[in-house]
């Protein structure tokens, strides 16, 4: 992919040379911001062909994810400011973060007219968590009591219903967890918790091709594979965020370069992430229609604490020294052209629970102290840092710059080791073949500090690729999960974050990522949230 992208530049340059004209494109006219709006107008949205049939509990990648998010509404959701709000639920109450009572809003319907009831949720969750159905998102139900019985690690399930779920009446059900989880309410927003109509169980395969949800948009016609997925406004949608447009058409592209060219010539209306090669240029091309905005994702480099000397306590200093050798501000501004911000901790600024400067002095550029710390810690194991990353993402620019800084300011030999694909890099990382530094990134599942800390830094957590383990940190997290209020939990997590970075630094925070988006002249009122998704329902299509 990278090769192909630099190819764009070669091609552009050739084209420029051939025609002896300056490159550019659309210019900066953004059209009239208050043009007349067509409430039934549809717009196209950049996407890739979903990898799986559209079933909420089996959709875990962006292609299908964006479609699920428009066809379905979970109990709760997040608004533009990352604040939790009730969606299908009227209220979710709990006094101990372990027993929840969910009351549903009355009158909600599925796209086929079937009313949405408590059973729509409970049955869907039972089905999704059942080991027999092998759903990719089954692990989201793990906190619920009885999960181990319906989804044992080996063999067939011992039960087909989650013990912790009980229907009280049509509009009310209760959830019991195995232990308190302070952010469970937040987690309920996730696609896997979407309700399913009865039609789903009759023929799950057909449903995957023609999904029926309870969300603001319903499927329009057939799914034209690899070309587009059309949706239209659902007239009976009862939520507060009624669409201001007629529907979203998800247009599938193989290459983002192709999509970007369509965007510039108004053949594609919204692109949530322009190609990396266009990061320096898209503002010229799109003018006011270019958006650069931080979202809930970070980029770090991590260390294999399971490998040789890296696990030794004195190497904390070495990692902190390496961190101080990196001039994040300059890299973000020059090499990355503002497509990322320098990080001052693990949790990005736009995420609830963010605390300024949780990294302390260790994420501030200070070459003198960097060298001192590296020396005090006895130097880098093997006297050389090898930074592994996947070359099919937008990683080369920062990886080269970071390595360069480590060499120049830290006085440590540093080379990069690009793996051709994300898949290959992942396999090496999860099979614990790392010998030195590697790229570790996180894109939020939900905009709360818990997600950033617990998923990667808890002992034996699923994405803890460093095998980092610290009893005090684990205890803090347990305490946070049992906290009565979300504010209290956030505070404890922030404390854990500080402890991780300032006392162990198993990973070096580098950047908070930006979404670089753009839209065509045909639409207006395009905003993005911390998931780097457009607020789909708010988009207005000009007449």
């Amino acid at each position: 992919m990278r090769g192909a992208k630099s190819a764009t530049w070669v091609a552009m340059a050739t084209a420029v040379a051939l025609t002896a004209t300056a490159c550019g494109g659309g210019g900066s006219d953004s059209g009239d911001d208050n043009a007349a709006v067509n409430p039934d107008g549809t717009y196209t949205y950049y996407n890739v062909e979903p990898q799986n049939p559209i079933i909420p509990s089996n959709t875990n990648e962006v292609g299908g994810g964006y479609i699920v998010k428009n066809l379905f509404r979970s109990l709760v959701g997040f608004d533009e400011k990352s604040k939790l709000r009730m969606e299908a639920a009227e209220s979710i109450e709990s006094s101990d973060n372990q027993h929840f009572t969910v009351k549903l809003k009355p009158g909600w319907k599925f796209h086929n007219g079937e009313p949405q009831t408590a059973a729509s949720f409970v049955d869907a969750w039972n089905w999704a968590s059942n080991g027999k159905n092998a759903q990719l998102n089954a692990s989201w139900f793990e906190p619920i009591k009885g999960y181990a019985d319906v989804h044992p690690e080996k063999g067939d399930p011992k039960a087909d219903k989650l013990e912790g779920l009980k229907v009280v009446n049509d509009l009310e059900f209760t959830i019991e967890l195995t232990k308190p989880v302070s952010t469970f309410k937040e987690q309920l927003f996730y696609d896997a918790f979407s309700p399913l109509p009865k039609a789903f169980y009759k023929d799950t395969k057909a449903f995957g091709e023609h999904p029926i949800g309870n969300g603001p948009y319903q499927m329009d016609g057939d799914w034209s594979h690899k070309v587009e997925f059309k949706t239209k406004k659902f007239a009976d949608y009862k939520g507060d965020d009624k669409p201001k447009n007629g529907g979203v058409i998800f247009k599938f592209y193989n290459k983002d370069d192709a999509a970007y060219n369509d965007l510039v010539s108004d053949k594609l209306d919204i692109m949530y992430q322009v190609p990396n090669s266009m990061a320096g240029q898209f503002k010229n091309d799109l003018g006011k229609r270019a958006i650069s905005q931080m979202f809930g994702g970070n980029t770090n480099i991590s260390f294999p604490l399971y490998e040789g000397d890296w696990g030794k306590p004195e190497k904390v200093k070495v990692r902190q020294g390496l961190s101080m050798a990196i001039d994040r501000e300059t890299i973000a501004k020059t090499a990355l052209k503002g497509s990322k911000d320098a990080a001052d901790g693990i949790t990005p600024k736009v995420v609830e629970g963010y605390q300024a400067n949780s990294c302390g002095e260790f994420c501030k550029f200070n070459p003198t102290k960097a060298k001192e710390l590296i020396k005090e810690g006895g130097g880098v194991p093997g006297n050389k840092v090898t930074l592994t990353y996947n070359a099919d993402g937008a990683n080369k620019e920062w990886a080269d710059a970071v390595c360069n800084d480590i060499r120049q300011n830290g006085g440590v030999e540093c080379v990069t080791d690009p793996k051709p694909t994300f898949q290959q890099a992942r396999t090496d990382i999860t099979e614990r073949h790392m010998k030195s530094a590697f790229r570790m990134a996180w894109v939020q599942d939900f905009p709360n500090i818990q997600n950033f800390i617990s998923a990667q830094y808890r002992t034996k957590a699923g994405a803890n690729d460093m095998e980092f383990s610290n009893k005090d940190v684990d205890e803090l997290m347990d305490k946070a999960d049992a906290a009565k209020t979300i504010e209290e939990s956030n505070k404890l997590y922030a404390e854990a974050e500080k402890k991780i970075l300032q006392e162990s630094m198993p990973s070096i925070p580098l950047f908070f990522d930006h979404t670089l988006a753009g839209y065509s002249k045909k639409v207006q009122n395009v905003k993005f949230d911390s998931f780097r998704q457009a607020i789909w329902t708010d988009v207005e299509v000009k007449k």
Partner: protein
Amino acid sequence: MGRFVARRLLQMIPVFIGTTLLIFLMVYSLPGDPVKSLFGPKAADPATVERLRHQYGLDKPLLEQYWNYISGLFKGDFGQSFTGRPVADLMAEAFPVTIRLALLAFGFEVIVGVALGILTGLKRGKFLDQIVLVLTLVVISIPVFVIGYVTQFLLGLKWKVITPTVQDSMNIGQLMVPAIVLAALSLAYVTRLTRTTVGENLRADYMRTAVAKGLPRKRVIGVHLMRNSLIPVVTFLGTDLGMLMGGAIVTEGIFNIQGVGNTLFRSIQTSEGPTVVGIVTVLVLVYLVSSLVVDLLYAVLDPRIRYA
């Protein structure tokens, strides 16, 4: 003739088995675990991995997997992709698009390439010949993605003659420009090949005889010269058709055409054995059939060749 065709058809069987087995082995030796990678950056939960592996038959020994695949193939079952869709469906979507694109490119290549080749071959050393030689040299030396991006940039973005990408992959009018881009390289080869053989045959004895007999020039060139000059060109065109179908990955990517090349590329990235093997098998068959057709065409072009 009949026996020749029968023998060639029989030869296809070992070639077919050999290629499918090789590709099957190659896909399965790709680094990375296809089932685990379905989970993205999240840790895969072992129970689900186990079940999915069983579902796709990945828990069986390799040769047994291959046997299951091949025996399914003879029942007309191309297997299932990891997305749960039958591979036959995937191919039914992609092949019509690619066949259109390849045939357009092929037609363009044959008509323009052969015409230019004959013209320049007859007028060797003249101005037109020089121009065509330089132009084909340029085309041959520029990689196809550069030609593609430049065309897209100039026609689509700058002059706005076409939409930058193909909006409807089945629309022949929209496939025109990508087809020309795809054909450009082969076109240059066909032109040069034709030019050379025409030039050589012009000096052949039978040509002198034909002219001496006082045959009209039209007949000398159209029948005597063309027939003999086209033999190497036909060989090239035959294998090129297969290449146009399978090798359009770059062009398809640039113009966002939903054809075979891209489906193949995506399936290789996700290590989807059944899809890769299915598509490549069909491509291999295309190669085999087109080379058989080429061999038969020899006999038509050159009566001295007889197949017993």
